[in-house]
């Protein structure tokens, strides 16, 4: 009906996606290295607390536990931030969606992409730190694959929670609780290395990504191809499902906001 999207083509939408992502990113970090360092305070504090509790109170004896924990927290924090960015994107841009003909998917996509930028920076810092500490595995480049999988999974989830948030205003609260549950179903702070418990954790795609990231980045362990293939397929399917469900219902979003 409306010629706007078709007439100006994908170039316009890509430009818009980029502008939305960059503006979210700038807003978060004020465009400065200091802003970025400041934003690291919360994960660093989380790291310090978990390290103290698990190392000294619970008494985890795994060698290199600090490195294990750092990797876990960096990628868990991404998953959490990404889904919350998606969740809040539509409400935050309600004025835009109600007055300019912009696909709601792009608005969610912009919020999600801005957390991808942070993911990239955090990964670079992490790799540099591992390299400096002599803990970087020669398999490290392979970690790009599970990181991309985690990004797809987080994006797909973001579309679903974003849509849910349009219909139910308490989605943020519920998602916070579900994330807490998912956090403990993912080996972020505790160590499960093989055994029946690991088999259960492998049912969780976030856990699968995190296992692969740690294996490639730190432990130089190459799992059976089947494990990798299933992880890639599960994450890709989550993305396609999230996007398809969102897209099918996105036309009515401006009226519901």
């Amino acid at each position, binding site marked *: *009906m409306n010629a706007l999207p078709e007439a100006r083509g994908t170039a316009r939408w890509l430009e818009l996606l980029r502008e939305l992502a960059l503006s979210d990113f700038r807003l978060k970090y004020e465009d400065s290295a200091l802003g970025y360092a400041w934003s690291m305070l919360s994960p660093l504090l989380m790291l310090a607390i978990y390290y103290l509790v698990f190392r000294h109170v619970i008494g985890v004896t795994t060698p290199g536990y600090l490195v294990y924990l750092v990797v876990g927290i960096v990628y868990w924090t991404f998953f959490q931030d990404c889904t919350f960015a998606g969740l809040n994107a539509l409400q935050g841009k309600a004025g835009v969606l109600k007055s300019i003909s912009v696909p709601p998917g792009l608005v969610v996509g912009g919020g999600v992409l801005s957390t991808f930028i942070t993911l990239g920076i955090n990964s670079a810092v992490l790799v540099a730190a591992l390299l400096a500490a002599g803990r970087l595995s020669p398999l490290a480049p392979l970690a790009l694959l599970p990181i991309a999988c985690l990004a797809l999974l987080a994006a797909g989830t973001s579309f679903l929670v974003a849509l849910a948030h349009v219909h139910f205003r308490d989605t943020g609260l519920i998602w916070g609780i579900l994330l807490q549950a998912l956090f403990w179903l993912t080996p972020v702070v505790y160590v499960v290395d093989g055994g029946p418990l690991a088999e259960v954790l492998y049912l969780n795609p976030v856990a699968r990504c995190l296992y692969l990231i740690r294996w490639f980045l730190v432990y130089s362990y190459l799992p059976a191809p089947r494990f990798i293939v299933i992880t890639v397929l599960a994450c890709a399917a989550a993305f396609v499902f999230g996007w398809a469900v969102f897209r099918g219902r996105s036309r009515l979003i401006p009226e519901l906001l």
Partner: protein
Amino acid sequence: MIAFRGVSKVFTIPHLRRRTVFRRLFAAGRFSYETFPALKGISFEVGAGEFVGVLGRNGSGKSTLLRIAAGIYQPTTGSVRVDGPVAPVLELGAGFNAGLPVRDNVLLYGVLLGIPRRRLLGELPEILDRAGVTRFADARLESLSTGLRMRLAFTVALRADAPVSLIDEALSVGDEDFQRRSLAELEALRSRGRTALLVSHSTELLRHLCGRILVLQAGEVLGDGPPDAMIDLYHSQ
């Protein structure tokens, strides 16, 4: 350029209390909502190069009509045809982010309105100058007064190079000098053969700019004709 054929829009308004999962769980089966017909079978056409005004009291359906023309809302029944890209200016400065610098806001808002970023970068000095905010280019938008923000938004919005403009109450912002200049810009758009649908409460503005006026009353077209007659009709409601 724009054709509405029997367009209706019914809003389904769920009772506010149901809009949480919590309420749904504990109110299962007692799902209730209100319906509100904002437009009731509206038909009209706007030809190429025409400036058509829309008059009507609050709640008569003017904004819904513009949003449907812009493709933001979907009509419940009826069909809508709009030829060519539209530049909707329904809420000035929607998309502005108070925490970002003025310069970044011009780019963000412009790109949202469909103006290519490259062109915006080239025209940035002129846009800032026309809006009278050159000195504040690197300041955060929140340091500008509301009036200046609206001026900036209007200046950017006028750059959107679309054959069809949909404008909602845009001219009520700014001081007299700015209003005069904005009016001149709209006249320039008209002389360049652009098509526009203008919503305003200012009958003087519509009389000046539009060749035809549509009067809406409670979601229906009360009248469609020459400005003077329609303004009288609007006043006699």
